[in-house]
């Protein structure tokens, strides 16, 4: 006896297979980094809309979490099954480009299309004069304060590091409250320090390419953080606090000041709607700075569907889609038309983050960046824990980084 269901499935499978053969469509594999739970559905929507217009091209979306994305792409490339296009962290682009994995897109990029982007965000994607990828997401960092805590402690929102220190002293006297949320664990522990490094006038690399960690500015920044830990102005034991842990304390209303990204705003609105916060530029030392971070849309050199992939890219960068993406994920726009929308110029939250863009610093596009960041994180943790003094730690870290860079 044959089960009727099985027979019909077989016929269905057969007919589907034949349909597939008949249309001979081009498949574009697109690996998408998961920014939030909205990312996957958003890109699927774009793909569906594109496929409706281009029935001969199939966009195959695969959503991969950020934590495993680099490992995933590494094994895909090594195994010869790389996607056609992928979102990547711009800091990885140099590695991809220098190994011949990334396809230069100068030949595809028309002047009109290129003109839609904000120039600042195009720059990190240029390697050896060739454009290796398009900016797909951008954010800048800023300081966020809890207004209630500041009012309660009688502190004024700080403009300089000295003012932040004084305000923190007042807030720290409130019960069950930490004045300054300091990250000391896992991803971007180094970024939390770069904010202070840059605003004190230092930089990750000096003009001659050697590490800037042994500069007096870096020492000043690290000493300040350590002093705040020792005086109880931060939450205790920062080395147990990841970025998310610090942000969670802030959402609970227990922290006066944090350094954060725009993506926190939708989270606060959903999880702590009563929290009164304000976005401010980073405190100034010798200079103004913010950390600009971009992600890149990259095409793979061994893709066999470059034309189709590019067609999809042009489609996905239409204003309507970019607006939906940037607003949904809480990013700053990378294209001029979206940046001109009232939401991005008038909303105080978004404008607060966007204000820093003219003086934004980017992570340097240099080889072995992840390893250099790891050395920096390790050193910062040792300093925060008191295992080494700031001076010794930074000096040996700079030596190690210079060695990694072959200088």
């Amino acid at each position, binding site marked *: 006896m044959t089960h009727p269901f099985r027979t019909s499935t077989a016929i269905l499978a057969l007919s589907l297979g034949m349909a597939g053969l008949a249309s001979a469509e081009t498949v574009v594999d697109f690996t998408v980094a998961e920014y939030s739970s909205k990312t996957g559905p958003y890109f699927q929507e774009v793909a569906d809309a594109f496929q409706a217009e281009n029935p001969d091209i199939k966009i195959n979306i695969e959503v991969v979490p950020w934590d495993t994305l680099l490992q995933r792409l*590494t094994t895909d490339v090594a195994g010869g099954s790389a996607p056609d296009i992928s979102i990547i962290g711009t800091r990885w682009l140099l590695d991809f480009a220098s*190994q011949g994995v990334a396809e230069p897109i100068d030949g595809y990029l028309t002047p009109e299309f290129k003109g839609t982007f904000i120039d600042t965000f195009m720059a990190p994607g240029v390697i050896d004069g060739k454009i290796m990828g398009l900016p797909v997401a951008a954010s800048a960092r800023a300081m966020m304060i809890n207004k209630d805590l500041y009012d309660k402690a009688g502190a004024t929102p700080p403009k300089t590091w000295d003012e932040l220190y004084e305000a923190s002293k007042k807030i720290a006297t409130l019960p069950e409250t930490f004045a300054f949320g300091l990250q000391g664990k*896992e991803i971007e522990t180094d970024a939390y320090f770069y904010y202070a490094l840059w605003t004190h006038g230092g930089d990750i690399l000096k003009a001659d390419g050697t590490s800037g960690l042994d500069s007096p500015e870096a020492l000043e920044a690290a000493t300040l953080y350590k002093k705040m830990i020792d005086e109880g102005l931060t939450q205790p034991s920062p*080395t*147990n606090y990841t970025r998310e*842990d610090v942000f969670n304390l802030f959402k609970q209303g227990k922290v006066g000041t944090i350094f954060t990204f725009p993506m926190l705003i939708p989270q606060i609105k959903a999880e702590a709607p009563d929290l009164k916060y304000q976005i401010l530029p980073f405190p100034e030392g010798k200079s103004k700075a913010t950390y600009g971070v971009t992600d890149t849309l990259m095409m793979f050199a061994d893709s066999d569907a470059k034309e189709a992939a590019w067609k999809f890219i042009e489609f996905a960068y239409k204003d309507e889609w970019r607006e939906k993406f940037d607003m949904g994920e809480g990013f700053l726009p990378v294209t001029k038309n979206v940046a001109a929308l009232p939401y991005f110029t008038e909303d105080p939250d978004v404008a607060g983050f966007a204000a820093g863009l003219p003086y934004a610093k980017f992570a340097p596009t240099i080889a072995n960046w992840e*390893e250099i960041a790891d050395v920096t*994180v390790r050193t910062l*943790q040792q300093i925060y824990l008191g295992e080494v003094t700031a001076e010794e730690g930074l000096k040996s870290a700079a030596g190690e980084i210079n060695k990694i860079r072959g200088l």
Partner: protein
Amino acid sequence: MANRIQKSVPLMMILPGLALAVAIIGYPIFDLAWTSLQDVSRFGKLTGFNGGENYAEVFGDPLFWESLWRTGIWTLAVVLGTLAISMPVAMILNDDFYGRGLARVIIMLPWAISLTMTAVVWRWALNGRAGLLNATLMNAGIIDQPIEWLATASTAFVVEILVGILVSIPFTTTILLGGLSSMPQDAYEAAVVDGASGWHQFRYITLPLMKPFINIAIVLNVIYVFNSLPIIWVMTEGGPANGTDILVTYLYKLAFRFGQLGKASAISLIMFFVLLAFTMLYVALVSRNDRDDAAPEEEV
């Protein structure tokens, strides 16, 4: 001649299976050794031999030696701790008591949860401000200030070892329980008649008879624990300041964060040989002991 053919027949019969096993187990190791001698791009492309430079880099790296040392402590502490707890647990579960079936299920349950999930749960439980452990200890009045368990390497590593022990107990208890249930009861009855105390029964009957099971538990646990990534990776990623890095977490960072696949495969091969050496040494030690134990009895 006929005799020789007859002798070689069994060998011939296991030869295909043996060849398959060697190919399946041997090929990756060969490939690893091959890779470890070359310059490798971050995408696994081999770009030529560099004559042991990967090994020189590994041996010149203080983090490697620290991780190796810590791997030893980690393996020893977890395996011995597991045995010390599993043995009495297995003995209790071997006794007949009301609700034994349920008790056995409860002991085995953690096994059903993936290591990664267990580690994630512990990471939350150990959170300084929001963690359940601190909340419990503070409510019970044992501590009056929350402890940041994972903030320093020393406490984090101890906590990780304890979690490692916890997750190894079900497997070890199963092995030991299997051994205990095959134990001859008449030996115990005879011992009771001779007036042996509970400790004497354990020391002179249970322990010697359990030896093969304890040995297998030690060897298997050493291999699992030595290679175990999830607990440490999820809870601290080897931090703070590389203070909880063991070889496998260090290897993972090298390979998938820094893209140094050549150096990573060198460490991987070193780990393989460390384990191989341990296993061979241990098996040799055990079989020699068995012979020594057996020898006087033959004289009697």
